[in-house]
């Protein structure tokens, strides 16, 4: 059983209500069996039908009560499951935003989206099933059993004995099936992925001239997949076979036993019929648990996975430390000053430093280039400066205020961030540009469109700036996406801009044009531009050269060239490489 289950809010009243309903339900099951048996045996004894109308109505009443109880149970469990699932999802989402983009990248976007969407519905399904199943298992068989014992001890003994046998067999077969599946999991995984793998690699196969003959491979592998699946199913279905087999067999044994004792005259017909009607009902709760087993297991795991995200330790500032800062508005003007002293980032303890002992002193507006070989820590420094990442060592000072990191909303409100592949939301072009400033007027958006060099694109679209772009809409080229991000930044009018390798993947002509646009937009801002493209450097006011997480050199292009140090070597190495 799930230990978390009792911790969910509102579980206690739900469980209490469901238990009560189940109790009423088991009573009505006993009564309906009894009354139907009485009617049948009376008719059998030759009593006229009209004397039985009362009993028949009572049977129908009990029958309906039983199902109405089930109806209410489902309603209550659904409401509880829906509430709890929604609150778990909400907590997970909130936590995801607080953990930030780094965590999302690490976990994989697809995984997270599936977990939040599919996971919630699986978890909801689990809750919806588990509450009535638990209640059913813990009440119905025992009430029925007690009643049967009161009627006919022999049948009671048969039933009470068959339950543990049934459960033991189910568990044994379940374990055997799992072992069997695990043993061939690897080859099974390959077989089941083969088709989608082939489709994704179709272009490659075609280019290699192998695509035609591969269709026979598809047929062959699909056939092997079928055999492998059937081998697994033969074992997997055994556990429900065992369930079926022992249930039906017990019912049959009970029936035959009843018959024999009736022949001997040890038993009244009405008792025999009651027990016969009750016998399948005795097993019904177990069978339902068995048939929902996989669905509940999936849901339980999904719930645990989400709980794990919620329990993930936060990298953010301690709340107390934050509280003071959040109140005060931060600002960045030409007189502002940001100091980093001894800042280091280590993703794992004992692991390598992504940043080590970084000390910087940044004043006012200006363009700052961050350069270095790949793996030198350029992106990590941008993440620290953008407030996505809390350094594991060192401290910072912003206009004389000490803080251990920049991961505060107050700082983030001053910044815009343009990554290598800016994300385009599936929304209109105008709304994408308005992202940082949702209330901006159309005229302001138009101005941003013009400034970012998007006018031509916007005029070319059938609906202009109202055209849907992004996933499910019109796809933009890499250069166009960068321009949308630039327009976003321009419209937001925030004083600090962070760019991480914004042009490296673009074709040279697009890069050339984009550079001219960017340089214009960089005026009167504090810009951090991390790149390995050297051509940016002469346009920068200050260059930070990183090497293996450390600041190797700081200075202007001319100063660094004259010094013939790390920067000079970097240039030389790129020159020789080609």
């Amino acid at each position, binding site marked *: 059983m799930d230990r978390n289950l009792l911790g969910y809010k509102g579980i206690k009243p739900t469980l209490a209500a469901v238990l009560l309903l189940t109790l009423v339900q088991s009573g009505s099951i006993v009564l309906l069996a009894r009354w139907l048996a009485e009617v*049948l*045996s009376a*008719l*059998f004894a030759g009593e006229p*039908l009209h004397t*039985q109308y009362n009993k028949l109505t009572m049977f*129908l009443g009990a029958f309906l009560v039983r*199902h109405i109880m*089930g109806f209410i149970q*489902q309603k209550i469990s*659904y409401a509880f499951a829906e509430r709890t699932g*929604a609150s778990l999802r*909400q907590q997970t*989402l*909130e936590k995801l935003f607080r953990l930030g983009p780094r965590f*999302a990248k690490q976990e994989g976007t697809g995984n997270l989206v599936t977990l939040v*969407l599919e996971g919630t519905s699986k978890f909801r399904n689990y809750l919806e099933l588990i509450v009535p199943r638990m209640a059913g298992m813990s009440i119905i068989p025992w009430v029925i059993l007690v009643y049967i014992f009161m009627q006919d001890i022999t049948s009671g003994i048969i039933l009470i004995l068959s339950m543990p046998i049934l459960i033991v067999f189910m568990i044994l077969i379940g374990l055997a099936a799992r072992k069997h599946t695990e043993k061939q999991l690897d080859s099974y995984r390959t077989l089941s992925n083969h*088709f989608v793998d082939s*489709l994704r*690699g179709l272009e*490659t*196969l*075609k*280019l*290699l*001239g192998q695509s035609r003959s591969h269709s026979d491979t*598809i047929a062959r592998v*699909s056939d092997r*997949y079928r055999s492998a699946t059937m081998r697994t*199913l033969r074992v997997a279905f*055994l556990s*429900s076979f065992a369930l*079926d*087999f022992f249930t*039906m067999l017990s*019912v049959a044994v009970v*029936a*035959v036993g009843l018959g024999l004792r009736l022949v001997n005259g040890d038993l009244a017909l009405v008792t025999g019929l009651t027990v*016969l009607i009750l016998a399948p009902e005795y097993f019904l709760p177990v069978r339902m648990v068995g048939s929902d087993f996989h669905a509940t297991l999936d849901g339980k795991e999904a719930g645990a996975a989400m709980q794990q995200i919620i329990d993930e330790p936060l990298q953010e500032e301690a709340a107390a430390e934050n509280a003071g800062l959040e109140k005060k508005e931060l600002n960045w003007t030409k007189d502002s000053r940001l100091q980093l002293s001894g800042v280091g980032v280590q993703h794992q303890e004992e692991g390598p430093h992504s940043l080590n002992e970084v000390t910087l002193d940044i004043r006012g507006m200006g363009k700052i280039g961050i350069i270095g070989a*790949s793996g030198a820590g350029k992106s990590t420094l941008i993440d620290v400066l953008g407030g*996505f990442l809390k350094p594991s060592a060192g401290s910072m000072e912003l206009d004389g205020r000490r803080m251990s990191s920049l991961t505060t909303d107050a700082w983030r409100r001053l*910044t815009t*961030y343009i990554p290598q592949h800016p994300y385009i939301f*599936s929304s209109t072009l105008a709304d994408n540009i308005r992202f*940082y400033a*949702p209330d901006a007027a159309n005229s302001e958006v138009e101005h941003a469109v013009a400034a970012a060099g998007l006018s031509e694109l916007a005029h070319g679209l059938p609906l202009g700036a109202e055209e849907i772009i992004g*996933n499910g809409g019109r796809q933009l*080229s890499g250069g166009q996406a960068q321009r949308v991000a630039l327009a976003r930044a321009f419209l937001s009018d925030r004083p600090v801009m962070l760019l991480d390798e914004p042009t490296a993947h673009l*074709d*040279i*002509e*697009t*890069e050339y044009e984009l*550079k001219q646009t960017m340089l214009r937009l960089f005026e009167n801002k504090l810009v951090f531009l991390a790149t390995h493209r050297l*051509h940016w*450097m*002469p346009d920068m006011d200050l260059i930070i050269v990183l090497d293996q997480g450390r600041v190797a050199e700081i200075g202007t292009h001319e100063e660094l*060239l004259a010094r013939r140090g790390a920067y000079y070597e970097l240039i030389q190495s*790129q020159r020789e490489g*080609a």
Partner: protein
Amino acid sequence: MRHEGWLLPYVRTYWGRFLIIIALGCLTLLTASMLMFTSGFLISKAALRPENILMVYVPIVLVRTFGIGRAVVHYVERLVSHDAVLRIVALMRTRLYRILEPQALFISSRFRTGDMLGVLSDDIQYLQDVYLRTVFPSVVALVMYIGSIAALGWFDVRFALFMALYVFILVAVLPWVSLLLTKAKSRLSKQQRSRLYTRLTDAVLGMSDWVISGRQSQFLAAYEAEEREAARVNGQLKRWARWRQLIGQAVIGLSVITMTVWAAREYAGGHIPATLIAAFVLVVFPIMDAFMPVSDAMEKIPSYQSSLQRLREIEAAAGEYGGNGSTAAGISLEEVRRLAASDVHLKVQNVSFRYDDASPWSLQDVSLDLPQGKRIAIIGRSGAGKSTLLKLIEGALAPSAGTVSLSGVDASAIGERMPQLVSVLNQSPHLFDTTVANNIRLGDRDAEDDQIRRAAAQVKLDRLIESLPLGYRTPMHETGQRFSGGERQRIALARVLLQNNPVVVLDEPTVGLDPRTEKELLATILETMQGKSLIWVTHHLVGAEHMDEIIFMENGRVEMRGSHAELMAASERYRNLYRLDRPEAFMVK
């Protein structure tokens, strides 16, 4: 294209199996029902206290048989039905593959949204349910319906007709009402889910933007509102499912009463013996249980629609575009081999291309001349016509005007056999979920192990591969973490080496790699491609000095061409671009 459905043809193919499955399904229900029937009979008979125990011997045996039989038959039925459905899946897969295969080179440009291929593969997986959850249970219920009514008719035709009408509520009315009531809602629910999916993807992929903009709470509020709306619709569906269940049960309860009344009257009239009263009444429960799943099966129908729709559209689109993909090779295998064995002279003469008369020109008047061993670079922004030009050279498209020929043979005539003349290394070559060695062997299926090792050594991967615990037999999916972008390209390059073709097309293989990796990979490519003709589509000028000709394309035309030295001397624009790309040459004297 033939308009064949995705469901019916398989029923035709496997009708024998289908019959067996239906028969087994009915038998499962029959044994369960007969267990209750004979039990009821046995007990009643025993209550008459027959002189001899042998009088109840037959029912005793039957009760035991049915008790054991139901589990066995059900087990067999499940296996047989899954087996048949998996056979169908295999056929569907081959069919989908054959539909997609001719247009393989156009898939990425045609389905830009997300992972269309993954979706299609899931669709086929999902269509299993059509048979397992809808067709089989419904047909079984129908057969049981007819069977049990017929059996009842044997006793009393009028009552049988009455029950037929009554049970019709369960078998047809309730499912039909259910389908009618939920159709629109399930569709709405599905749309809501896909919208939530898009929103959530936007949230996770664009998280840095949400965080920086400080609009997280705004997003969460909007998202939760949509989730609530989806939950409301879902709740309505659930509510109907509960009501349907309750109505169904009420019908069952009433039919038990009806049956009791009828059996009592029949007995009173002397038409049936007393021993059958309990039997008739008890059998109602298991039989009615067979009809309950029909509503559920019917409600599922709308959920198959989108999968079927997608598959149909793909098939229709394949028919439409079929003409573009060259199908039959015009020349024999021997001729292609002969061509590949000697020097190949690739000529593109005044080629223009547009998809149809109404669309704008994708390429206009482009000419290339590549005697064996010449290396050219093609540069241009996206949409300049580079990919179209490559497709013409690969023979996947036929020019609207002009000719593409290899040593005088028309490219479209070579068609399917082109991979034996021209190799392609593109931006994201697929590494298949098999061993490292098998991935390399895709270049030449008959390659010996030492040839593979030699190819790996040439692309400088031998040390890395040999350091893996399983060496060349390491499964690729386990190396997903270990192989970087550059290393993956090297595996693809090893394939190209095994192909050993005279002409090689490099379609931006270095995009997304960091400069160091890019330079190293480029050096390896140039080193291993000695003597081969190279057509290198690139986005910048690294390595341009090593090319015999550099071609700048814009809007489907050649804007500028010449060797590096010529362009440096003659073109201001080229000098600007080169300075942007290789500033170090100007920075350090």
